[in-house]
């Protein structure tokens, strides 16, 4: 099976969706001739032409608004916003139109579109080039929020997002873009949006994470299992919204302990939502308070200290040990 980076896997998904469905168009800043800042759309212009692969002006609000217009007519635009920090320019169109069109038109104009955007730290960038604001979108009714963690699920989930009848915010962990290769088959592959994946089964404690945080989580898990003899269960959320409450509840019902890891700021972060759900449906099975290891409530810091800001294997191990040691 061919080995692909996440960038190549995403490119494959776009390519195959475009080949299959002439309603699929991609658009964004420097995505056509240059193939995008991260080269996710490389080669698509040559294959599908400038009517379907469009360089847009530097105007995010216009890009998303135009994509909404295309989508409510029946096209399937996949709009790239160069960095997730620049989605703020488009907040108006995302929140007011993209998220609400099906509802506002009382289902007369459903809206199937994808906003792809790289998010997260770990590449020595600055504030608006490193942040994780998935909470904004998860908080917005009408949107789906999908975050892959590796090349294979990225490809399958992007296909699923393009096929989805509702608008999807597709957050790409840029720290993973070229970090490693994985088997990604040539044949089209898809995954169900809204399903979390139990990546490793265990009995003692559940770690829940997503996106770029999956790598340090798995690294920490290896250590915890091999050096500390703990039996850790690991869940990759994959879809922030809809959230697979059932898989989370089943896992924590079994293990009784849980650590949640994300790089976005703490207050009103995704961990807070997960804790609320587990509190509602797994409370009586808890052996220890659920711990969250998150980014701080600050603007994403500059490069020399970003490793301090981001959760890493060491801090995850620490959080797990503390939770395991909890004694009521």
């Amino acid at each position, binding site marked *: 099976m061919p080995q692909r980076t996440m960038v190549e896997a995403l490119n494959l998904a776009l390519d195959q969706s475009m080949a299959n469905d002439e309603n699929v168009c991609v658009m964004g*800043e*420097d995505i056509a*001739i*240059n193939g995008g*800042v991260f080269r996710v759309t490389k080669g698509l212009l040559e294959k599908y032409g400038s009517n379907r692969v469009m*360089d*847009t*002006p*530097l*105007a995010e*609000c*216009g890009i998303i608004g135009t994509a909404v217009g295309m989508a409510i007519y029946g096209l399937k635009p996949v709009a790239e916003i160069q960095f997730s*920090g*620049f989605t*703020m*320019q488009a907040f108006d169109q995302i929140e007011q139109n993209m998220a609400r069109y099906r509802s506002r038109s009382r289902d007369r104009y459903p809206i199937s579109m994808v906003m792809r955007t790289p998010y997260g730290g770990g590449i*020595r*960038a*600055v*504030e*608006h*080039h490193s942040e994780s604001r998935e909470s904004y979108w998860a908080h917005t009714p009408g949107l789906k929020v999908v975050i892959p963690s590796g090349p294979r699920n990225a490809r399958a989930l992007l296909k699923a997002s393009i096929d989805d009848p509702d608008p999807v915010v597709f957050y790409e962990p840029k720290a993973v873009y070229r970090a490693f290769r994985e088997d990604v088959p040539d044949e089209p592959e898809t995954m169900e949006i809204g399903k979390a994946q139990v990546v490793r089964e265990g009995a003692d404690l559940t770690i829940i994470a997503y996106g770029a945080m999956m790598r340090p989580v798995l690294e920490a898990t290896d250590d915890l299992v091999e050096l500390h003899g703990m039996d850790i269960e690991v869940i990759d959320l994959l879809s922030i919204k809809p959230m697979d409450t059932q898989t989370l509840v089943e896992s924590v019902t079994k293990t009784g302990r849980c650590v949640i890891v994300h790089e976005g700021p*703490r*207050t009103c972060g995704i961990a807070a939502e997960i804790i609320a759900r587990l509190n509602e449906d797994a409370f009586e099975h808890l052996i220890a308070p659920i711990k*969250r290891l998150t980014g*701080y*409530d*600050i*603007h994403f*810091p*500059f*490069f*020399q*200290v970003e490793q*301090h*800001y981001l959760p890493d294997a060491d801090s995850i191990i620490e959080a797990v040990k503390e939770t395991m040691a909890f004694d009521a």
Partner: protein
Amino acid sequence: MTTSSKPDITPQSASLKAKGPSTDLLKQWLRDMLLIREFEVRTMQAYQNKKIGGFCHVYIGQEAVAVGCTAALEPNDPVVTAYRDHGHALARGMDPKYGMAEMFGRIGGCAKGKGGSMHFFDKEHHMYGGHGIVGAQTPLGAGLAFATKYEDEIINGGVSNRVTLSFLGDGALNQGSFHEAQNLAGVLDLPVIFVCENNGYSMGTAISRGTTMGHDITSKAAGYGFDSAVIEGMDVIEVYEGMKAVVDKCRETSRPAFVDMRTYRFKGHSMSDPRKYRTKEEEQQYAQDDPIDKLANELMNNRGLSRDEYDVMAKEVKKQIREATKWAEASPIPDIEELYRDVYVEKFGPYSGTSLPAMLED
């Protein structure tokens, strides 16, 4: 005006002409431009040596714009710009050591080493910073102009006598915030000048592909009823003279204006840009139009600057930047607790529960 890429060695003192800015002033501008160029060259080296993180956008080729515009201002006129901001801060008078320390992420930097290339702030010189979000600084220019006018007229009971320069790139012409800012400035009669540093490209997008009426962007300002000017930005004397007229009128009438400042960035958009979107020929042609060479030639050919004097000046500038770099490297990396500082008015913010910074618990 024809120029060679290297300054002419023989001064033609016979043809000394005394028109325009004084020779001393021109020498100062030459020095200022050399300083910016040297700062950028060292910055690029340090970036390649991985001493600088984040993104880095250098100003090489555009030096005449910052220097000529600054010369047309009073020292207390506010300036605000985008992320290609090193030149504006240096032209405004910021000591390069604070800039270099910022690039290196050191506490001595102009943003405490916590911002980097896009965050050159200098309160003493009324420089309201660089801004990483394209276009987002343009309404700030309108707001600054409102504030100075308010202070001059309402608080001090006098007449508005300051002007704000709000710089933007040609790519920012496409952002909604820019258009909202222009309309607001027009409706409220604000003394702000939107200076578009039109280097022809927004990353890989040529202006003709990304902007309607890209061949005449003053048409945008016309739509808002502004005066505008097209200024040759590769020649510091033209920048100064053109801007002086616009600034003086803005100061006098308190009406906004727009400038299409024609310039060119000699390097890539950022440090990793293969520049496939433009031709080598185009780059070579603009290299012939180097603003530093142009002024050096003018000074040598018509103003009696000797080759020796030029060399001494270039050497001094190199030394100044070398020392700035040393100073920057000696400045400490910010403490971890600096992460939490400057987010809120309280030293460590209004945090509680497990949001409380861990370093405060130790």
